[in-house]
């Protein structure tokens, strides 16, 4: 969509002010606990100017940049999922006057959905949200809470000026440039002579907001600078994943001994699923009060790494860690395709970075079925 314009730092502040005036609760990157997390942002000074992240499998450190870039980091630990599908929320309550009574009243879960504006959404994250949309919204059993929060949300994408050490969106075709799903998209243009943004609208409401901001048309030099930045990012991915034939190879090698080797390292802690922007599993909890007069049903994030997750009729189907890791990886990279028509991984690299045991989905996916493949290759050559 939209044509490109130039937006100054003052223009970016004007954008925050305009969103605030329209009742949006703006969430964006902030430095906290030595990490980039998403929290309330109202002024440019809230943003992590001059900070970047160094990421490897199982490692994350903040470092100073040589410049004052506002979006000069790759990706923090939290996905936007935590706002669209909160880690825990109440679905409904039930109340009865007397614990002996059979009838009770159902009270709906409170509150209208908050009106969020997300600032600094990366291309991979937009893609992940579109995946969750398909599952949680565009589905015969739509999740009402997700759908309501999603409908209100305003997305300000930021194209990636650098790739992190664990990023592989280029392999997954999901980044580093935001293609769709945003209301406004920014590219940070920063050199010795200027600190500005290239901005384009991706929706009617984005265009309407852009129209009231101080902006000037972009020129060829601006566009060339943006293209160079994004090409450089695409070329410096920390990881790659060969997706050609991957689904078939994984599905054909469910008994590969490498799954057991992974299980010696995997902690079954569930961190990978908790940070993944496409993971959507939840469980329901019913609680009652001491008097037996109130009940509450809550929905909370669940993980396929727990034993409860596959507990059916007396036992857990995926009793060992190997079975659970295999379930997770084959779901993301193979079975998701059968289920939803695309892979469930956008190459954000969070599961690598935030795995305490430094287990790397790209390396493990490449290793599965390799022994068989090598043998077949040898047969082919003979």
């Amino acid at each position, binding site marked *: 969509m939209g044509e490109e314009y130039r937006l100054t730092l003052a223009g970016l502040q004007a954008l925050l002010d305009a969103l605030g005036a329209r009742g949006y609760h703006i969430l964006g990157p902030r430095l*906290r*606990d*030595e*990490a980039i*997390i998403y929290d309330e942002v109202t002024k440019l000074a809230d943003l992590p100017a001059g900070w970047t992240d160094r990421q490897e499998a*199982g*490692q*994350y*450190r903040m470092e100073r940049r040589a410049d004052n870039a506002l979006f000069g980091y790759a990706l*923090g*630990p*939290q996905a936007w999922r*935590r706002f669209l599908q909160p*880690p*825990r929320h109440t679905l409904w309550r039930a109340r009865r006057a007397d*614990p*002996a009574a059979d009838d009770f009243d159902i009270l709906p879960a409170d509150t209208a959905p908050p009106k969020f504006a997300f600032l600094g959404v990366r291309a991979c994250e937009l893609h992940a949200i579109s995946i969750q949309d398909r599952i949680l919204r565009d589905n015969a059993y739509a999740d009402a809470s997700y759908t309501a929060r999603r409908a209100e949300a305003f997305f300000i994408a930021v194209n990636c000026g650098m790739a992190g050490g664990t990023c592989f969106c280029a392999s997954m075709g999901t980044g580093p440039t935001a293609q769709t799903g945003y209301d406004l998209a920014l590219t940070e243009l920063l050199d010795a002579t200027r600190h500005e943004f290239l901005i384009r609208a991706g929706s009617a409401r984005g265009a309407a907001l852009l129209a009231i901001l101080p902006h000037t048309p972009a020129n060829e030099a601006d566009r060339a600078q943006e293209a160079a930045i994004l090409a450089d990012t695409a070329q410096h991915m920390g990881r790659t994943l060969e997706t050609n034939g991957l689904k078939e190879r994984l599905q054909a090698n469910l008994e590969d001994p490498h799954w057991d080797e992974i299980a*010696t*390292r*995997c*902690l*079954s*802690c*569930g*961190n990978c699923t*908790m*940070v993944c922007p496409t993971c959507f599993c939840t469980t329901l*909890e*019913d*609680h*009652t*009060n*001491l*008097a*037996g007069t109130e009940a509450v049903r809550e929905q*909370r*994030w669940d*993980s396929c*790494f*727990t*034993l*409860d997750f596959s507990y059916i009729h007396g036992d857990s189907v995926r009793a060992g*860690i190997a079975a659970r890791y295999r379930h997770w990886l084959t779901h993301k990279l193979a079975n998701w395709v059968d289920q939803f028509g695309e892979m469930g991984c956008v190459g954000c690299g969070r599961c690598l*970075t*935030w*795995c*305490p*045991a*430094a287990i790397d989905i790209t390396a493990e996916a490449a290793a599965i079925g390799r022994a068989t493949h090598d043998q077949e290759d040898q047969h082919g050559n003979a």
Partner: protein
Amino acid sequence: MAAHKPRLAVFKFASCDGCQLSLLDCEDEFLALAGAVEIAYFPEASSTMAKGPYDLALVEGSITTAHDAQRILKIRRQSKRLITIGACATAGGIQALRNFADAQEMLASVYASPHYISTLAKSTPIALHVPVDFELPGCPVNKAELLEVLSAFLIGRKPVIGAHSVCMDCKARGTPCVLVQGTPCLGPVTHAGCGAICPAYRRGCYGCFGPMEQPNTASLATVWAKTGATKRDIHRAFRGITAAAPAFAKEGDAHDG
């Protein structure tokens, strides 16, 4: 509806009273509890100590004396349901550090007249002595979890207490992982329940709630070593409040000496 209120009893074995205090700490809810049950026996809170049988017994503390080993048998016989609360009752507690040493030698070094002290060589969890209906870990137990267990008992449902890692609660809370940022943390092998407090304050988990459902302690020890933790650090981490829980005891042993 039953004519009488369920009779609750709270018993103490070798422990610091902290878990019973979690119950007293329930304040507002404590009144609701007093309305829902007859508090028949709770010496920490009340001077009335009514005889059994009891509908529900909460047991704090570990078994460390021959006398206590007999006492728990009697309590079990008097209690329809028996729930153990806390690290001592579920894993032997900090006093189970004696299990890895010579208890007599320890006595001799602490007491002037060790022959007055009658104690067992090991501190053991209640479940090693009698069947237990539910074990709630923690040092101390989390009062919200304790209320959940009591509410579940009263209405006759299963308590909603997850046995997953502390990590899942850490992530739900939105805390960046301190282990990935370089601070050793026991969260990946530790039972959730505390609400992932320590990482929220930039400290590694100390393992107060004991082993999670399927702890891969050997892998975590390797991860710790990569952060620069020594063999002794790893040994001492697993020799904490739940040292005698089998998974932690084994990993502690593997890094001994």
